[in-house]
């Protein structure tokens, strides 16, 4: 299926793309057909700065299982950092 559904969020930070490092301001999160990964559907995240044009994007396409593990890893890493990550 094409889920079409996109869950966006504002972010602050940087990402390294084809043209080097750039600030990222938004993350688009969606579960849909990948462009490259050899799965029917993947959890896709576009880290982007739309103001810099479509090419200012770092994309990942993850299997559903690996996306869940990534969520757990992020949560664990932030928890371990404690107050510094608040």
């Amino acid at each position, binding site marked *: 299926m094409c889920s*079409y*559904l*996109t869950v966006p969020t504002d972010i602050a930070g940087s990402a390294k793309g084809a043209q080097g490092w750039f600030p990222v301001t938004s993350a688009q999160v969606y579960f849909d*057909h990948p*462009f*490259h990964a050899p799965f*029917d559907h993947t959890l896709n995240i576009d880290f982007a700065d739309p103001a810099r*044009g*479509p090419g200012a994007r770092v*994309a990942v396409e993850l299997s559903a299982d690996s996306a869940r593990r990534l969520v757990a890893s992020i949560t664990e890493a932030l928890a371990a950092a404690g107050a510094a990550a608040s």
Partner: protein
Amino acid sequence: MAAPQEALTAAEVVLTGKDGASINAYEVRPAGDGPFAGVLVIHHLPGWDSGTKEITRHFAAHGYNAICPNLYARQGLDVDPDDAAAATREAGGVPDSQFVDDATVAVEALRALPTSNGKVGVIGYCSGGRHAFLTALSVPVDAAVDCYGAFVTGTVPEGFPLKAQPLVGRTGELRCPLLGLFGNDDQFPNPEHVDELEAALKDAGKPYEFHRYDGAGHAFFSVERPAYRPEAAVDGWQRIFDFFGTNLEA
């Protein structure tokens, strides 16, 4: 009919949209003087990708002038297709009115080729299946193939950010015969959605031919994905070439 020699010429061409925008398109033409029918290939939501261009070449190898316009060209002609798809998605997709204008320009380009026989068919996969149906409602084409297009019928769930709305209410406007190819394990469109479309076609007295495949879900033509189902895809390709052969002869 002689076996196709499969020699072809592929190139990127630039069309001018109704709004003046430049639209790059992948145009593939068989060798020889023709005349050849034309096929407009509509890419799916992930964009103007290599898989869709391979399909475009496949039609030319079978003796059709084929063109696949980049529906996301307004993000920039030099933007990578995957980046253009992501930016278009973030913007809410392509409005139907813009798509119809782009399809019109592409069909006109096919008919203007010196080797054209004047007939043009349209085919689309996934979101492109809906676009193929929309083309058959809105643009003078001679045959249309809807490969598992979602939201021709059914209800678009609340919260979906794209501008797609069901088209089944306009079935009476269909201008040409329709071939529909669907997997019975698909969720969008599921068999009930396909039933709804078939009932609308019958009610409107429109010519159509549907084939529904057991053991196949969405995107069963996609050779690079686990969804690929060789039995459905091989039969589906045969149905497509039979259908275009019947309806696109000069």
